[in-house]
């Protein structure tokens, strides 16, 4: 492999899903799976033009996100990964992740995915409580999620991650700890815990607006976050990013590129990129993307933007940001309040600081 080649993280957006979840406002389109072949054609063309523009690119990580990428058939996945391999130099130890919905995989499909070169599976479990899963609008049960995880392990996915959600409407602490324990009983290396965000226009937001009492109060939500950190730490998972926990060596290399502001190239409808200090995104319209619409307006970042991004993204991680970058008086005040700590020239948020990360960031930008 050519050592001078530009190295990027590759993100590929697959905006197809079986059904829209109640909380979801991502760019994803239910019931359009017949358009996957055309979409894969368009992706291949986009890959060609990307390397035409940037020159040869080497990918250390590939992430297939969605939507529900696991809606692709085994054959479709093979074709997509074939194209990726044809246009990009994939490192031999590359981390290649696909997001999967437990309701869309079986042993056979998982085996083909593995064959296609996928080596990390991120399962969207969200909860191990069937009542909550229904409320979220998920298409699978808790049992199906556990089965999917075990099947994935059997298919050879040793690097398995689960996504979980907390602060859900009607969720209590014991439901949450039960979900955490059931996740830890599975052969997983990485767990993401996301607090529910009520996005405008989603059925979930409408539900909460009509029944605000369903939402766990703030103290309980904070407690859930702390409980996750505590239980996961006991089992060797460390919190390397505000929402992500991993066993040593299993941190998501791909996601770390985002937080470190490394170069990443996003392919597909609505995919975002940061290349050479310029941010841009593809059209969120599936029609537009298929018709060949390119990226929209590029965002050339000022020094101020770069600083703000560095703080905003860096403080999410255990690595933190270089302390010397931050205004010393503000930093001292935040440290004094127990919200931040400085060690080895790096400034990071403490657990208390992580609880109020937005407010901490706001103090520093």
């Amino acid at each position, binding site marked *: 492999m050519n050592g001078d080649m530009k190295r990027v*993280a590759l*993100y590929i*957006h697959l905006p197809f899903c079986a059904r829209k979840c109640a909380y979801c406002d*991502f760019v994803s389109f239910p019931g359009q799976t017949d358009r996957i072949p055309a979409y894969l054609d368009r992706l291949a063309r986009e890959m060609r033009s990307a390397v035409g523009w940037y020159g040869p690119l080497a990918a250390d990580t590939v*992430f297939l*996100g969605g939507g529900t990428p696991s809606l692709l058939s085994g054959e479709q996945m093979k074709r997509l990964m074939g194209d990726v391999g044809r246009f990009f130099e994939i490192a031999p130890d590359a981390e290649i992740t696909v997001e999967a919905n437990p309701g869309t995989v079986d042993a056979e499909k998982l085996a083909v995915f593995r064959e296609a070169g996928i080596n990390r599976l991120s399962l969207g479990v969200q909860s191990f409580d069937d009542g909550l899963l229904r409320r979220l609008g998920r298409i699978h049960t808790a049992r199906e999620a556990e089965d999917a995880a075990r099947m994935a392990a059997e298919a050879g996915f040793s690097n398995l991650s689960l996504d979980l959600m907390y602060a859900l409407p009607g969720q209590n602490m014991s439901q949450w700890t039960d979900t955490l324990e059931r996740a830890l009983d599975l052969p997983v290396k990485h767990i993401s815990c*996301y*607090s529910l*965000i009520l996005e405008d226009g989603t059925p979930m937001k409408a539900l909460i607006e009509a029944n605000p009492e369903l939402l766990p109060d*703030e*103290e309980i*939500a*904070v407690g859930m*976050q702390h409980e996750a950190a505590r239980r996961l730490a006991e089992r060797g998972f460390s919190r390397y990013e*505000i*929402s992500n926990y991993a066993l040593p060596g299993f941190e998501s290399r791909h996601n770390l*590129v*985002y937080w470190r502001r490394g170069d*990443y190239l*996003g392919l597909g409808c*609505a*995919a*975002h*990129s*940061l290349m050479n200090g310029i*941010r841009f*995104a593809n059209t969120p319209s599936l029609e537009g993307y298929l018709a060949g619409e390119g990226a929209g307006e590029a965002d050339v970042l000022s020094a101020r933007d770069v600083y*703000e*991004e560095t703080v*905003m*993204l860096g403080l*999410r991680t255990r690595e933190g940001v270089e302390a010397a970058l931050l205004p010393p008086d503000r930093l001292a005040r*935040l440290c004094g*309040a127990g*919200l931040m700590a400085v060690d080895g020239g790096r400034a990071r948020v403490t657990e208390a600081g992580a*609880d*109020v*990360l*937005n*407010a*901490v*960031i*706001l*103090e520093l*930008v």
Partner: protein
Amino acid sequence: MAKTQETIRNFCIIAHIDHGKSTLADRLLEATGVMARRDMTEQVLDSMELERERGITIKSKAVRLPYTAKDGKTYEFNLIDTPGHVDFTYEVSRALAACEGAILVVDASQGIEAQTLANVYMALDHNLEILPVINKIDLPSAQPEVVKQEIEDEIGLDTENCPLISAKQGIGIEDVLEDIARNVPAPEGDPDAPLQALIFDSYYDNYRGAISSVRIKHGTVRVGDRIRMMAGGREFDVTEVGTYRPNGYNPAAQLVAGEVGYIAASIKDIADIRVGDTITRTDNPAAEALPGYKPVLPMVYCGIYPADGANYEALKDALAKLRLNDAALSFEPESSVALGYGFRCGFLGLLHMEIIQERLEREFDLDLVTTAPSVVYNVIKTDGKRMTIDNPTNLPPATEIDYMEEPYVDAQVITPQDYVGAIMELCQDKRGTFRDMKYIDGGRVLLSYDLPLNEVIYDFFDQLKSRTRGYASFDYELKGYVRSDLVKLDMLLNGEMCDALSIIVHRDRAYARGRSIAEKLQEVIPRQLFEIPIQAAIGGKIIARETVKALRKDVLAKCYGGDITRKKKLLEKQKEGKKRMRQVGSVEVPSEAFMAVLKMD
């Protein structure tokens, strides 16, 4: 000359708010042909956008209407429009002094209201001939006979030939015009006597400078005359005189006794023209000024600050522009630890204050932070010196104060009988002293109270409205100063005093007020990284405490798939919000908190 006077009719229209004064004025303009219907915007005399929206007249105006009556004579009507609000009582009295008659408009379904009475009494004080007119007879709820009876009983006016009209529908307008020609007395006055011109309004014209609206009581004024303001003392050369047309000037060679018109004299500062002052000629000066002049003093003060400190100069320019037209507005630079640099502004009353704030925001597109209004207190210090205080921050330490005095008003409330109890309770709450109660007619009562002005400016109107479901009407007039046990109430945020939140309050009310302000602040100050104690204190003694708890959990925006736009947007929004906050020590206080202390319960 006397012949000219014989056909002049100087009159105004008085009415309670909403009883249709401006609409009637429009119809009179239309019927006398000075304005064609198609040229009329609704309510021509109320030309300011705000006036139209609020349905009140803020400044006086005068317009000349020619009218050929049934007796065959052509009359010259001078309609003087008067401000319709209690803040402008003095201006109203000067406008009335320029007239011989007043049309009293009474709503056929509402009947007499507090302002109606106040205006009638004032008109009677000026010996005006009052012509009652019953308006809105087209409404289904109209009871013209009942209202006529009420006018006879309560005011003692003859209503036998009183026009029944609908200004809106244009019914009965001719009757009003005939009534004016027949019953408003012609002006008197000697054109050859020394000049006495009563200033009843002033305003600024970009080409002519500050202009006096005048009623010539005696004498004659011509272009080129040298004139003197008898109270103000300054002298000017007259550059133009004339009468008013709607939306314009009608220059003339002279104005003579009995006429209403304007005098321009290249006057730069409107403060040189004082409403109520008398203009005379230097070559043959009048021996004395016309009676009734009072210097206009602001009654209510508040701090006005630009929300963005960078707009200080813009605010200053805007205030100066408004001041060009409004001699009653005063402003002086002041600074606050919490709010930075701004202005202490003086107003005739709460409405005047609101109008100025709104005009600053609308016409000059300024974002403002305003502090709670204050009245003017007299402080008598232990060393015997007197001082006046319009900003609580400037109050000397308690040890240097012998005693203080606060302004009281003579308040009149007219209310349906059912609410008498509620209003008495309210006035009691507001430290009022009961004076009198009169039954006006079967259903209604006139209550008179002495009230401290500082209670009137503190949510009295809102309370009155809510406790009487909007049925009571209210009018007041400054009565004088009364010795009172007042204290300064300070608010501390995280242990630091916030000067812009201090108020002066009666000792008996301090505890309750301190508690409610602390509670209100606890509601409006958003949670921050640190816990914020809010304390109310009198002279260092804490009387109330609330806490804004520290922020516990942020909702994090997703950064899925490397899409950080949501996160950035959230950050931008939060930064914007933060910009609108005022830093008080370590605490961020939203702008609205400074006014919120006013609106309680």
